[in-house]
């Protein structure tokens, strides 16, 4: 997400005399509402995107009553899922102080406990189910855990654009334990719509804090300090993500190009924040000595503790940064491979990045080129002799994904039978009469007899089919007749082919 900030230098604040007028532009500036000269419309894209971030949380609340039995619907009715969603984000953020996030079971247990505290009469299975629904909503389970994607009207381009984001990530830590942690957008949902980078936002918070302490608004100051602490968490997570990424795939990172500058900035940022915090802590300590009102003293103590907590997180970040080069060298050593210059492109450093730049469509189209080259020959599998012809005649088409629009449905009209049922019955009856005479017949004789009997051409064609079917004992309807191939051909107006001979055989019972 693009973040824009323009803050006064720390020197402005260092004087200790920050007027309320100085604070005002700090809050107002990141939210730009400019009028576009071309269309006369306001550019509200950032605010729109920020609104969309909350949509998954709103959808969760809206859809919570869908599904489940009546008992569950009653149970979930008075549960505020907004609170649960934010609480889950909070848990994940706090968990980054000790690990790189929360495991799925930690979050589910936490949410179930909160749900039970909101509504003590909930049953344990219902509380569990609610907690699962909340986590699933944050991780977009409904859409197979893909990114959320919502459309918004983008005034500068006068088009509808898609905004894709995640609220949480489910990724492994260095010990390969999968943990959830909030994304930048997740932090933004939690911390409100102040769309600043964590480091800038921390500076902003400091200034507000200073102002509030000066004014004696300690309760508000405490709130701000707590938010600032969360920002310290986000900033630490941001830096740590990059470091972990570098440790995991040392081959893909150029330390001096990709990391050093960033870490120096982080170190500088922490140094400045620590100096500010020390000053602020002194100021709070001073106010604490002077304050006599119990409530004010409580707020001041909490404020001091929060400031110290944020300081501790920053110290952890300094430790992360200090050990980073060593850990990276360690990671590199683990996968150390001597590299000699070569004329052909290397897979890891050249081909893989280039291929990642190919469009999905090109990759999908080229897939079989690669797969057929990479895999050994696979023996075509034939499970049944019947499938041999199918296999030999098969044309190998590329796998095509069915289009979503399947076209219009048409009513299935069955093909009419070639011969009406009555006609088939007539042919069968006539044949039964002929076979009942006990004589042996040739196929051409029977057809000629039928013609002599004045049967139509259609009826005689029907006879041909019945007679040939009689050749297979399993298909034959005349169990008293055995059929054999004569080895000679016949030619008539309705049919031509191998002649058959129909011989009477014993009683039907014998045949069975």
């Amino acid at each position, binding site marked *: 997400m693009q973040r824009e900030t323009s803050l006064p230098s720390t020197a402005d604040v260092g004087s200790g005399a920050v007027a309320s007028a100085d604070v005002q532009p700090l809050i107002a500036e990141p939210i730009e509402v400019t009028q576009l000269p071309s269309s006369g419309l306001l550019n509200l894209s950032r605010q729109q995107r920020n609104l969309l971030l909350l949509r998954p949380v709103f959808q969760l609340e809206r859809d919570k009553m869908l599904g489940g039995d009546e008992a569950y619907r009653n149970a979930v009715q008075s549960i505020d899922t907004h609170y649960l969603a934010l609480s889950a984000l909070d848990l994940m953020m706090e968990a980054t102080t000790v690990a790189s996030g929360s495991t799925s079971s930690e979050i589910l247990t936490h949410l179930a406990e909160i749900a039970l505290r909101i509504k003590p009469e909930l049953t344990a299975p219902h509380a569990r189910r609610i907690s699962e629904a909340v986590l699933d909503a944050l991780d977009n389970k409904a859409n197979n855990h893909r990114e959320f994607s919502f459309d918004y009207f983008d005034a500068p381009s006068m088009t509808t654009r898609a905004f894709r984001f995640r609220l949480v990530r*489910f990724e492994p830590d260095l010990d390969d334990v999968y943990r959830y942690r909030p994304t930048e957008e997740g932090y933004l949902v939690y911390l409100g719509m102040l769309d600043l980078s964590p480091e800038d936002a921390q500076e902003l918070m400091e200034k507000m804090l200073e102002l509030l302490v000066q004014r004696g608004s300690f309760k508000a100051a405490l709130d701000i300090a707590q938010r600032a602490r969360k920002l310290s968490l986000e900033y630490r997570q941001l830096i740590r993500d990059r470091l972990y990424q570098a440790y995991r795939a040392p081959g893909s990172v150029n330390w001096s190009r990709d990391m050093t500058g960033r870490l120096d900035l982080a170190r500088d940022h922490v140094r400045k924040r620590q100096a500010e915090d020390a000053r602020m802590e002194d100021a709070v300590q001073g106010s604490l000595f002077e304050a006599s009102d119990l409530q004010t003293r409580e707020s001041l103590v909490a404020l001091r503790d929060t400031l110290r907590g944020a300081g501790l997180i920053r110290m952890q970040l300094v430790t992360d940064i200090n050990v980073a080069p060593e850990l990276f060298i360690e990671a590199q050593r683990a996968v150390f491979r001597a*590299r000699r210059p070569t004329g052909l492109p*290397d*897979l*890891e450093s050249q081909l893989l990045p280039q291929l*990642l730049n190919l469009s999905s469509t090109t990759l999908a189209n080229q897939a079989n080129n*690669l*797969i057929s080259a990479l895999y*050994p020959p696979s023996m075509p599998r034939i499970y049944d002799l019947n499938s041999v012809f199918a296999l030999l005649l098969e044309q*190998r088409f590329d796998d095509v994904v069915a289009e979503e629009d399947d076209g219009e449905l048409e009513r299935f009209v069955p093909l009419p039978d070639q011969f009406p049922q009555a006609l088939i019955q007539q042919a069968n009856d006539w044949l039964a009469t002929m076979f009942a005479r006990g004589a042996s017949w040739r196929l051409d004789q029977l057809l000629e007899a039928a013609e002599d009997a004045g049967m139509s051409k259609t009826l005689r064609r029907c006879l041909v089919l019945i007679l040939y079917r009689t050749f297979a004992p399993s298909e034959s309807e005349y169990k008293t007749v055995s059929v054999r191939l004569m080895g000679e051909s016949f030619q008539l107006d309705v049919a031509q082919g191998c002649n058959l001979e129909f011989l009477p055989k014993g009683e039907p019972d014998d045949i069975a």
Partner: protein
Amino acid sequence: MTSPEPSVRNAARLAYKALHTALSPINDAEYRELLALYRADPVFHRHVEDVVTGLELQILDSTESRGLVVVPASRESRFSVRLADIRAGMSPDQKAALVLAHVAIAAVFFPTTDVLDDDNYSPPPSSLAACRDTLYALARRLKETTDLPADIPPELAPGWDAIAALPMAIPAGQRASASSVVGVVKIALNHMLQNGLVRLDREAVDDTAATYTPTHRLRVQLRELALRRLYEMAQLVTPVAKVD
């Protein structure tokens, strides 16, 4: 023991043995003898090549210890494996991810062309996690360093965007699913394992901890065939984004 005849029948027999990718001449005396004849007798050599060519196959390599390495001569060959044989009905994004997973696995085992050329080099065992991280970390880095136009249609978006958009893993997902990075890498590794391109080095209860090593066949197929195809594919890149 008599040496086999340099007949067409025996040539077809050798081709048959070569098609059984699991067979090794070390454990099969007939295979060993036919292979020795193939290497020694030019007439038999030609017979084998004719049989193999007639079957729309191609010989990549022959060694006494590892046998004859034959591959489908083209992607149209009835013996060639296609993406749909691995998993049917995938979306273009999933197909792209599966192709990239294969390349990432190959890159983990053989990062440079040198090690691919060096028959004495044995790649260290690697885990599913290593392959996953190679693919995902690179995709994320490209996402961070590339300024992709906001209005780019999905079908023209680069493959790293498809990978970075996938969830790393599906929580509680047991089956290898083409909808997560771990899932596609798992599908690719499982299929490579079934087809003798990698072998399971160490089994573990947790899939991500199991380690794999590449077989000789993977090295040969990559070196002699697939690397060139990959190189040709890489030439198809059309710049859609500005890289910082």
